[in-house]
């Protein structure tokens, strides 16, 4: 049910990827994501696939867990694919019926787009699977630190993100419970038109908001009671220090990006010539 959503949830395991400095993971993920858009050819995707499989393997996050994380975005994925499939008019027509036309170019773009999106989601969720929200916070805070100069409240943003991540599973469970409680009182969430359905969500949303505010209030109090007073003067339990494996990770990822772009484009160029 609803609590099965795993996207963005930390998966505890002991792997090299888990131990990497969060800054490395953030920057490398960013590089990886950009690289996905710098090529579009089968050899390029082969390299990208091999690389992704290797990283997943090293991270020790079970593949099924990652697939489960894809579930909530399947709709979005389908829509993108369909748009690309039907709206791109390029190359030979493969299929035509009424207003729908599928061209070779359209099919290719759709498939590439789907792969890109899936890899994009897997890549970025792999980062959150292997990084505790606290580390992630520290990483974001460190990477964005220069923005402090232009008065961006970097520490506060990072703290908010980390708290949000901690409370997602709790609120999901709560939603499940409230839904069941209202079902027990005869509520109906499944029938009726869109308007009626939207209205039927009120008995879930109101208690959920009330609970979220109560929790926020409690949490703020608990944080103050433990002497939280913003980022100034705080020390770190896990300060960020680059180790040799972090430099190695940078080198590997940069090498990968160079390779995948070269192969991805080079081969395409090759075909072009012929």
């Amino acid at each position, binding site marked *: 049910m609803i609590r099965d959503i795993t996207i963005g949830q930390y998966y505890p395991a002991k792997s090299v990827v888990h131990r990497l400095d969060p800054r490395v993971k953030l920057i490398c993920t960013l590089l990886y994501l950009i690289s996905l858009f710098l090529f579009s050819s089968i050899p390029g995707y082969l390299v990208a696939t091999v690389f992704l499989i290797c990283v997943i393997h090293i991270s020790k996050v079970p593949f099924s867990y990652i697939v489960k994380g894809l579930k909530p975005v399947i709709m979005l994925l389908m829509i993108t694919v369909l748009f690309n499939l039907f709206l791109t008019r390029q190359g030979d027509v493969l299929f035509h019926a009424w207003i729908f036309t599928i061209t070779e170019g359209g099919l290719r773009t759709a498939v590439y787009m789907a792969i890109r999106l899936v890899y994009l989601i897997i890549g970025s969720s792999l980062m959150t699977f292997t990084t505790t929200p606290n580390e992630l916070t520290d990483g974001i805070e460190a990477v964005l630190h220069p923005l402090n100069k232009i008065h961006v409240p970097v520490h506060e943003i990072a703290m908010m993100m980390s708290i949000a991540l901690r409370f997602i599973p709790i609120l999901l469970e709560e939603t499940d*419970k409230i839904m069941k409680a209202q079902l027990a009182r005869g509520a109906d969430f499944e029938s009726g038109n869109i308007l009626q359905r939207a209205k039927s969500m009120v008995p879930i949303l109101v208690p959920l908001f009330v609970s979220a505010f109560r929790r926020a209030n409690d949490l703020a109090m608990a944080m103050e009671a433990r002497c939280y007073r913003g980022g100034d003067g705080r020390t770190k339990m896990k300060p960020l220090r680059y180790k040799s494996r972090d430099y190695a990770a940078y080198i590997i990822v940069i090498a990968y990006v160079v390779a995948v772009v070269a192969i991805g484009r080079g081969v395409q160029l090759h075909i072009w010539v012929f």
Partner: protein
Amino acid sequence: MSIKLEHLNYVYSAGTAYEKQALKDVCLEIPHGEFVGIIGHTGSGKSTLIQHLNGLVKATSGALYYDGKNIYEPGYNMRELRNQVGLVFQYPEHQLFEVDVMSDVCFGPKNQGLNPDQCMECALEALKLVGLKEKYYNSSPFELSGGQKRRVAIAGVLAMHPKVLVLDEPTAGLDPKGRDDILDQIAYLHTQRDMTVILVSHSMEDIARYADRIIVMNKGEVMYNDCPRKVFEHYRELEQVGLAAPQVTYIMHDLKEQGFAVEPNVTTVEEAAAQIKKALEKRK
């Protein structure tokens, strides 16, 4: 309106790494009009069990008969079942959502398809049953105290006129007086309104005082299913699964060891006092 469970199994997230059997071959029968207590420590499957009773969770295998009909038969009217079996969740006040107490209690009857006048009637009756003062009927449920909110939430279920009332720890977080009030109210519903009551509780003392029969759950299985006196005879086994007998049961056992002529299997203070007095008088 009996409830009968036959070889009920329930497995969470089947086929994944998180697979867990929450209920194992549960066979139970709850006749109409009984006051049943369910105990078991957290994770013993008792919450999952009660969510089966009104069809919120569907068993992986097995059958559940309500009033002689298997609720898993195709075409069974689940809505009607939920009208008959009222389920009050733990911390039920967290489900309140309407602008005032009255409308919130009307939510259930409204879903049953009653007209506004009938809804009001049901709501008024339910609010009276839980003993909420009339001056609060038009206030926002969020302005009430914890105990009052809980009453409103219970009224929300009672307004649907269930024949069976299932309550998951209705006294959690209340102060002693609040606990007694709610339990007395439930006992009243049981005797005066002829309702079947199924009460999940952590308090052995409360269960011993009110229940005709106790079902002990452990690791998804029914461990004991008997009258309180018989169940608490197994106080040593209960301790091993994170439960205990009421304090008086221990006292009586200790007294017996010290040579008192008492019958140790008592579960309430009144019974214990009577036994001790009798034993003392015999001596004289």
